[in-house]
Structures are given as C-alpha cells and as structure tokens.
C-alpha cells in the first residue's frame, strides 16, 4: 500500500502557543495517517507536552489550525474545543506523570473511559432498568477485554494506586483505549520503566497497531524505543520542528544530533 492511499487522520497546521512572552510551540506542522506510529522527540523543554495539551484541548492554542478527519465523518477544526469533546471525537491521551483515578479499582479506571460512549442518565441510573443493566454489563465486558489486552486482568479489583509502576502506565493506555479513539496520544509512556517493562510496552504498542485501527503519536525520550517503533519521527527544539523523517533519516540528520548532543564535535 502506498502512503498516498492512507487517510490522514490528524492535520496540524502552523500551531502556535504563547504563554505570556514565551512561545512554547512555534508554527508546528504535523500530520498523522491511518495506522501510523509517529513519535515526537526533542530535548527537555522543547514544547512537546505543550503541543499535546493544545491538540487535546487542555490549552487553547494561540494560532494555527488543528484538523481531524475521522473515517466516514466530515473534517472538523478542533482548536480550543473542550477536552471532553475532543476525546469524544476520537482522540485519547495518556499523561506524562500518570494521572490515574487512584482510589478507584483498575477495572473502574477503564470503565471511566467508556463514559463518553455510553449514555445512561440520572433517571436511568436510579431506576436501573433492563437496558441500563445491559449497558453496564457491556461496559464491564469491554473494559475487561481491554485489561486482557494490556495484561492487567489479575489486578482488576485492586486500587489503581497499588499497582506497580509499569502496570499503571499500561492501565492508562487501556483507559485511553476504552474511549475508542482513532488516534492515541502517549506522553512518555516508557518514562520510569525498567527494561522489561519497556519491552512489554513496545510489544503492547505493536499489538495495538496490528489489532486495532488506531494510529499512535508518542512523546518519548527512550531513543531505542522510538527508533524501533516509529514509522515517522518529528523532532522539536525550542518550540519549532527541526526535522521529520524515518528513524534512519533522523539518526543521520546533523541538526538532530546537534540538538541532542550539543554542537557536534569537530569530527
């Protein structure tokens, strides 16, 4: 399949975000197509997380366009839409410093992700009729299958705060997937993981791509992971995008080496 056949899902044009005098994200262009795993890398403070926050509606960008093209639905411009609306439209995310609902069980955490795909209202919840019970059961089943997918079923009834670190990260991914996104945004999914956990994570992400039709955009510092996993890598520095390409192209890009290692040695 040639690249041209693949539908573009997310298209960001000239995205800019200013905080006071500081331009954290500076006219970024970026697009992600169906089935793609893309990575956003760059030194600390390059504006990667801010970019995520703009795309997912937590910040209102100061300039540019964010367009989504969900399958079978018209294109939409989502600048400054509320985060919950954006999630409903099909983009879900995880957080750099894990934000699970710590006093809820693992299963319930995933069930929260189903919220925007279900519709029981107040009266429904109180009367708990047959249709409501059925929906509840579906939520439980769907969530449980997601836990199977990320390998957390043994912890289903644990409080999420009692999970080991790597498992918490995977739970966040499962929770995001429960919203049935077409694009999953992962903010440093491997941060703080040990090599085994990281290997599991890579396997998980690959499985998500092969089994679902979810595109993935991830921010990551673990270069090994990024290089192994990504189809495309975007490099940011000082809020600007300095390179885009395949892992091989990025490795050989002098600008990237400079950004990472400092100015190149005289070699």
């Amino acid at each position: 399949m040639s690249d041209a056949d693949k539908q573009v899902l997310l298209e960001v044009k000239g995205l800019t975000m200013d905080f006071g005098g500081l331009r954290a994200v500076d006219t970024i262009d970026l697009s992600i197509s169906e089935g793609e795993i893309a990575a956003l890398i760059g030194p600390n403070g390059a504006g990667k997380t801010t970019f995520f926050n703009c795309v997912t509606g937590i910040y209102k960008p100061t300039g540019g366009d964010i367009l989504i093209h969900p399958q079978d639905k018209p294109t939409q411009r989502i600048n400054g839409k509320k985060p919950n609306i954006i999630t409903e439209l099909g983009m879900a995310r995880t957080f750099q410093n894990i934000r699970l609902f710590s006093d809820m069980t693992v299963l319930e955490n995933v069930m929260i992700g189903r919220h925007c795909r279900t519709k029981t209202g107040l009266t429904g919840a109180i009367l708990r009729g047959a249709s409501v019970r059925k929906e509840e059961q579906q939520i439980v089943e769907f969530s449980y299958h997601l836990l199977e997918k990320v390998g957390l079923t043994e912890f289903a009834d644990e409080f999420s705060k009692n999970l080991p670190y790597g498992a918490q990260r995977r739970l966040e991914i499962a929770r995001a997937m429960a919203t049935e996104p077409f694009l999953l945004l992962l903010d440093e999914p491997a941060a703080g993981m040990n090599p085994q956990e990281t290997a599991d994570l890579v396997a998980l992400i690959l499985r998500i791509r092969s089994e679902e039709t979810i595109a993935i955009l991830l921010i990551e510092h673990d270069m090994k992971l990024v290089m192994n996993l990504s189809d495309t890598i975007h490099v940011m520095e000082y809020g600007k995008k300095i390179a885009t390409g395949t892992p091989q192209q990025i490795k050989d890009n002098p600008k990237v080496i400079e950004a990472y290692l400092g100015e190149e040695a005289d070699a």
Partner: protein
Amino acid sequence: MLIKYTKIGKAMRATQQDMSMARLVGVNVDRVISMTFIIGSALAAIGGVLVASYIGQVNFYIGFLAGVKAFTAAVLGGIGSVPGAVLGGLVLGLTESFAAGYISSDYEDVFAFGLLVLILILRPSGILGRATKQKV
C-alpha cells in the same frame, strides 16, 4: 518593612514564590511557616482588641463572622497577594458601609457575599491576584 527588608520577610516571600528553591538556598521552610502563622495571629489579635473595645463586647462567636468576612476580603483582593488583602479589605468595608447606609443595613452580609460571588465569577484570581496556570 517587615516583609520587604527583614530576613524573615525575605524568606517568606521566597518560600511563597518557590518553596523547594527556598530550601535550596538554605531557608528553613518549617520555621517560615510557623512565623507566618505567628505574624498573622499577631495581626488578628490587634484587630480583635481594637474591634472588641470599639463594639464593646466579646463572645465566642465573633471570630467566625469576622473570619469569613476577612477571608472574603482576601479572596476579593486575590488570595496570596499581600497588597490584595489590604485592597480587598478596604473595598469590602466600603461596600458594606455604603450598602448599609444607602440601601438597607439588614442585608449587609448579603452584599458582602454577593460581591464575593461576583468577583469569583468575573475574575476568579481576585483584583490583584495572578491567574495560575495548572501544570499538566
């Protein structure tokens, strides 16, 4: 003077602006917090004595209303901002006084809280407060 020039004043300001950095330059944060409570309490005591001798009576309950009103003033001015607290206090006092004098003294408290709600809706950070950006 205290806040601007003394050592404890500076330590207080530094702690307020960046607590862990203040520790990194050697500020004993626990002591600063204790001092803050002590200074605040001294001010409250001055207020308490003045008001008691002005109104001419004391009761165990006087602290509650005064506290709520003063807190309203602090929020009005922008909580966390020292000049804000002063400004907020004066604005609240004048509002109450004029509302009581020109409209109705029965509803003094209603005006005070009405003002608070209004400010919080229009400008949650208060008059002199700074909007805080939540980190994600």
